[in-house]
C-alpha cells in the first residue's frame, strides 16, 4: 500500500505539474492576445482614437458677430443693438413646459401672445434649444426671476442683443427690420456663418445689405463634459462684426416729409442730384419695426395686414401710381428733341380733344379750355389738350423710347429689395400682355400720364433728377458707404449713364417752363414760390376713379378713397440743382395745393437748414 501510494502520489503530482504548466502557458498566451489587442488600440490606432477623444471633449461653439449699425448722413443712429434680457426655456430640461409657463406666470407677466410665440418657435426649434418665452424683461422682472430661480430647471434669463430702431415708424420701410430666420431663408443662407445667429434682415436696407451687416461668425473651441457643459475655452477666433452703414438719408428731412404728409397717406422720395443719394424715402402710413424683431404677435400682424391703409406696403418703391401731369415736361422735351413742335409754337385748346372721325371727347381739366397755348403755357398751366395733340404727333413708339430713357417702366435699381418697375406701355407690351393692338386713344392719355402709365415715387424722383442734371442719369442709392474703423467712409460706387445728349437749349426751355410752374403768376404750384432759392416743379393729378363721359366731376361726392392722388415733382435750386423730389399724396386732390407744399418743406430744410426764417414766402 505505501509503495503504491507513493507511486500514485508521484504520478498524480507529475500529472498535476503537467496541467499547471499547460495552464501557465495558456495564461501567458491569453495575456499575449490581450497585449496584442492593447497594442492594436493604443499604438496602431492611437491617432484614430485620439481624434475621437478630441471630438468627444472638444466642441466648436459659434461666436455670432454683432450686427452692423446704421446711421443717417449726419450720424444719427437709425438701427442699433440693445442689450435685452429674455426669459428662455429649454423644453427638454423643463419637463412639462406648459406647467413651467404657468408657474412663471405667477412671477412675471406672461400674456397670451408670449405663449403663442413660444409654441410657434417650439415647433421650429429642437428640444434642447433655448426658446424665449418673454423678451425685453424689465430689471425688476429679472430680479424676481432670480429670486425664484431655484424652483425651475431648464429656465434661464439670457442676455442678448436685440435690434432696435430708435426712429421707429419714421424709417420703417426704408430700413426694414430683422426677424427670426425662417425655413425658407435657411435654404439660402450659409448656415455655418449664421450658426449662433437667430436674426436676419427681412426687408429694406436690413435685407439688401444683410451680408455686410451680418459680418462673419467666429468660433471657439471649448472643452465639454459628457453632459455638454462647457468647462473651459481652448481656442477662440473672434467674430468679425458686421459693417456699420452710413446712409444718404437725412433724418431731419425724413421726419419733415412724414409730418408734412399730415393726415394723408402717400410717399415722398428725395434724391441728391449730384450723387444719386436718397435723402428721403417716406411711405405713409408706417409701422413700428421694433414689433417685428422678436416676432410680432399674430393679432398685431393681422391688424397691420388687413388695414385699408396698408401700412406694411412701401409706397415709395412699390407703389405704382399714374404719374399724371408730372410727365408733361418729359413729353415736352421729347417733342422738342424729335423736332415735332417748337417751344413757342401755339395750339388752340377748346377744353377738349377729339380724334378725327371719333365722337369721344378727351377732356381738359379746365372745362372751358386754355385758348391758344404754347409749350411753356401748357407746362405752367398744365394744359391737357396740348399734350393730347403732342402725344398723338409723337406716337406711342417714340413716347416709349424717350420716356424709357428717363427710367420709366423699369426699376431704378436702387439698393433696396422689392422695388417695382412701374409701367411704360408700348405696342409690344400691350400685344404681349393683353393680346390686343394699340389704339390711338391710348396714346393720348399716355400724354397726360394716365392710362396704363404707372410710376413709383422713387422713379419720378430719379427721372426728375436726370432732368435737372440735363440727361446725366445717376442710379439712386440709399447707402452712402461703409464706415471704417478710423471714421472714414468706404463709399458705395456711383453708377452714371450719360444717355441724353440733347440740345442744351431744349433742356433750358423745359427747365424754364418748370420754374414758371412755381414762379409764374398762373403756375399751378405758385403757392410754394420761395425768395431764397428758385424751384422748378410740375404738379400732377392722378385719377384713381375715371369720370364718365359728360359727367360732372364733383370732389365732395366722391368718397375720400376715390379722390384723385396729388403729385408733385421738383428740383432746386434751378441754377445749380441739388435736390430732386417727388411727392405722391394719395387721395390728396390737386398736386399744386397738397403735394407741392410738402416738397417745399423738405427742400427748405435741405437747402436752407434748420431755420429758414423769413427768407421763404409761403405765398
Amino acid at each position, binding site marked *: 500500500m505505501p509503495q503504491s501510494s507513493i507511486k500514485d502520489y508521484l504520478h498524480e503530482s507529475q500529472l498535476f505539474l503537467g496541467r499547471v504548466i499547460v495552464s501557465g502557458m495558456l495564461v*501567458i498566451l491569453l*495575456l499575449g492576445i490581450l*497585449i496584442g489587442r*492593447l497594442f492594436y*488600440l*493604443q499604438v496602431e490606432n492611437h491617432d484614430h482614437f485620439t481624434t475621437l*477623444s478630441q471630438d468627444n*471633449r472638444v466642441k466648436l461653439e459659434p461666436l455670432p458677430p454683432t450686427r452692423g449699425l446704421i446711421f443717417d448722413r449726419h450720424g444719427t443712429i437709425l438701427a442699433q443693438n440693445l442689450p435685452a434680457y429674455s426669459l428662455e426655456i429649454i423644453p427638454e430640461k423643463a419637463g412639462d413646459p406648459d406647467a413651467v409657463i404657468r408657474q412663471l406666470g405667477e412671477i412675471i407677466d406672461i400674456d397670451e401672445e408670449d405663449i403663442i410665440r413660444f409654441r410657434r418657435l417650439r415647433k421650429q426649434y429642437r428640444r434642447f434649444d433655448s426658446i424665449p418665452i418673454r423678451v425685453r424683461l424689465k430689471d425688476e422682472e429679472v430680479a424676481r426671476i432670480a429670486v425664484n430661480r431655484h424652483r425651475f430647471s431648464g429656465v434661464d434669463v439670457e442676455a442678448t442683443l436685440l435690434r432696435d430702431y430708435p426712429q421707429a415708424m419714421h424709417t420703417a420701410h426704408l430700413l426694414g427690420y430683422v426677424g427670426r430666420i425662417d425655413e425658407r431663408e435657411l435654404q439660402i443662407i450659409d448656415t455655418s456663418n449664421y450658426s449662433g445667429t437667430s436674426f436676419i434682415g427681412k426687408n429694406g436696407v436690413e435685407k439688401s445689405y444683410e451680408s455686410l451687416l451680418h459680418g462673419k461668425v467666429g468660433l471657439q473651441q471649448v472643452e465639454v463634459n459628457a453632459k455638454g457643459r462647457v468647462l473651459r475655452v481652448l481656442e477662440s477666433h473672434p467674430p468679425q462684426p458686421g459693417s456699420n452703414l452710413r446712409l444718404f438719408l437725412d433724418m431731419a428731412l425724413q421726419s419733415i416729409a412724414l409730418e408734412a404728409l399730415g393726415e394723408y397717406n402717400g410717399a415722398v422720395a428725395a434724391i441728391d442730384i449730384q450723387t444719386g443719394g436718397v435723402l428721403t424715402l417716406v411711405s405713409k402710413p408706417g409701422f413700428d419695426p421694433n414689433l417685428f424683431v422678436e416676432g410680432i404677435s399674430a393679432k398685431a400682424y393681422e391688424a397691420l395686414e388687413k388695414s385699408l391703409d396698408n401700412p406694411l406696403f412701401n409706397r415709395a418703391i412699390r407703389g405704382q401710381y399714374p404719374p399724371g401731369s408730372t410727365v408733361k415736361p418729359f413729353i415736352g422735351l421729347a417733342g422738342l428733341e424729335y423736332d415735332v413742335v417748337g417751344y413757342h409754337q401755339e395750339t388752340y385748346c377748346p377744353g377738349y380733344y377729339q380724334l378725327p372721325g371719333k365722337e369721344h371727347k378727351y377732356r381738359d381739366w379746365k372745362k372751358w379750355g386754355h385758348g391758344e397755348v404754347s409749350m411753356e403755357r401748357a407746362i405752367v398751366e398744365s394744359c391737357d389738350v396740348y399734350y393730347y395733340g403732342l402725344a398723338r404727333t409723337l406716337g406711342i413708339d417714340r413716347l416709349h423710347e424717350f420716356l424709357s430713357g428717363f427710367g420709366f417702366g423699369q426699376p431704378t435699381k436702387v439698393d433696396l429689395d422689392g422695388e417695382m418697375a412701374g409701367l411704360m406701355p408700348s405696342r409690344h407690351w400691350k400685344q404681349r400682355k393683353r393680346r390686343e393692338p394699340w389704339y390711338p386713344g391710348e396714346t393720348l392719355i399716355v400724354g397726360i400720364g394716365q392710362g396704363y402709365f404707372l410710376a413709383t415715387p422713387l422713379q419720378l424722383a430719379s427721372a426728375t433728377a436726370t432732368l435737372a442734371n440735363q440727361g446725366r442719369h445717376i442710379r439712386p442709392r440709399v447707402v452712402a458707404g461703409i464706415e471704417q474703423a478710423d471714421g472714414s467712409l468706404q463709399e458705395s460706387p456711383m453708377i452714371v449713364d450719360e444717355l441724353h445728349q440733347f440740345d442744351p437749349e431744349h433742356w433750358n426751355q423745359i427747365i424754364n417752363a418748370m420754374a414758371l410752374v412755381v414762379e409764374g403768376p398762373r403756375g399751378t404750384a405758385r403757392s410754394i414760390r420761395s425768395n431764397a432759392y428758385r424751384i422748378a416743379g410740375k404738379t400732377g393729378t392722378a385719377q384713381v376713379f375715371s369720370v364718365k363721359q359728360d359727367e360732372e366731376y364733383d370732389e365732395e361726392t366722391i368718397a375720400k378713397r376715390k379722390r384723385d392722388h396729388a403729385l408733385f415733382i421738383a428740383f432746386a435750386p434751378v441754377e445749380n440743382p441739388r435736390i430732386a423730389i417727388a411727392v405722391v399724396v394719395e387721395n390728396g386732390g390737386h398736386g399744386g395745393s397738397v403735394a407741392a407744399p410738402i416738397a417745399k418743406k423738405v427742400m427748405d430744410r435741405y437747402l436752407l437748414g434748420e431755420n429758414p426764417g423769413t427768407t421763404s414766402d409761403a405765398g
Partner: protein
Amino acid sequence: MRAKPHLSLHESQPAQASGLLAWLHIDLPLLSSLLLLAGIGLAILYSASDKEMVLLQRQLLRLGFGFMAMLALAQIHPDNIRRWSPWLYGIGILMLFAVILFGESGKGAQRWLDLGIIRFQPSEMFKLILPMLIAWFLAEHRLPPTPSRMVAAGLFTLIPVLLIAKQPDLGTALLVGTGGAFALFLAGISWRLISATGLGMAALGPVAWYFMHEYQRQRVLTFLTPESDPLGTGYHIIQSKIAIGSGGISGKGWLNGTQSHLEFLPERHTDFIFAVISEEFGLVGIMALLSLYLFIIMRGLYIATQAQDTFGRILAGSLSLVFFVYLFVNAGMVTGLLPVVGVPLPLISYGGTSLVTILASFGMLMSIHTHKKLLPT
C-alpha cells in the same frame, strides 16, 4: 510548539519578521504583491472617481475587511477547509434556492439575500465553494478521476452555475463555472474529453442563446456590432475603446484622462476602470500592471505545485486560474475582445463582494502553502 511565538520574539529582526509571517501563515510574495495591487487600485480609483474621497474610504474599508478575511482563512488548516467543503456546498446550494425564492432585486436581477444583519450574494461564495468541493470530491480517490466521478463532478459544477445564471448573473455564473472546470482540468481529465466538451459547448451556443434574457442577448449583439447602437448599449464599448486607444504608449497621465474625467466613459470606477488605467498610463502602464497580475497568478500556480496533497493542489491551482479569468474577462470586455458580462477588474474595480471573495481565496492559498506537515523520510 506552544512556545514558538515567544521564541520568535527574541530572534534577530529579519528572522523575527519571517518568523512572525510564518506564525501568521502569510506568504510574503503574495501578500506584498496583493498589497501593491490594492495600493495601485486605490490610486486609480482616486482618479476614476474624480477624487471622490467617500468612495475611496469605502473601498479602503472593504480592502481592510478583505485582507482580514484573507488572514483569517490563512489560519485555517487545509484539512479543515477540506472537511467543511461538502457542508458549505450544501448550504450554498440551499441559499441559491433561497435567493431565487425570496431574494432581493437589484438592477433587474435577484442576487441578494438579506439575512437581517447583512445582505450578501451567495453566488459570490461559490467562486470559492465550488473549487473546494471539486477538489474535495476528486481528492477522495486516485487521479485521474474515473468517468463516473467526472460526470458527478460535472453535475456538481452545473447545478450552482445554472442556479446563478437563472438569477440572472452571467458574469458570476461564468466565473463559478470556470472555477469548477479548472478544478477538473487540473485533476487530469483526458484531453479527448476536454476537446469533446469544447465541441459540445460550441454546439450548445444556439441553445444557450435561446435561454438568454433579452438584455444578455442585447449585450452579445452589441458586442458584435457596438457602433450599431452608439447611444445605447454600444456606448460603453465605443467610449472605452476611445479611452484605451487615445491613451497611446505613455498615456495622458494620472488624473488627466479626458474620457473618464469628462464623464464620457460610463462605469469608469467599476467594471470599466481598466479603460481608465489604459487612458492615463498608456500601454507601458497597463503592461506593468499586467506583469503584477501575472506574478500573482504564477505565484499561485507555484503554490499549487508545492502543495502536499491533491486537495491543496487542485484548490490552489483552480483559485489562481479563476483569478486570471477575472482579469482576462474584464480586460477582454473593456478592450472589446469579449462581450460585456459585468466582471470587475480584480482588486481594482470599486465594489464589495468580489473583492472580499478574491482576497479570501488568496487566504486559502496561503493556508495551503504554510500548513505543511513534515513528510516522513
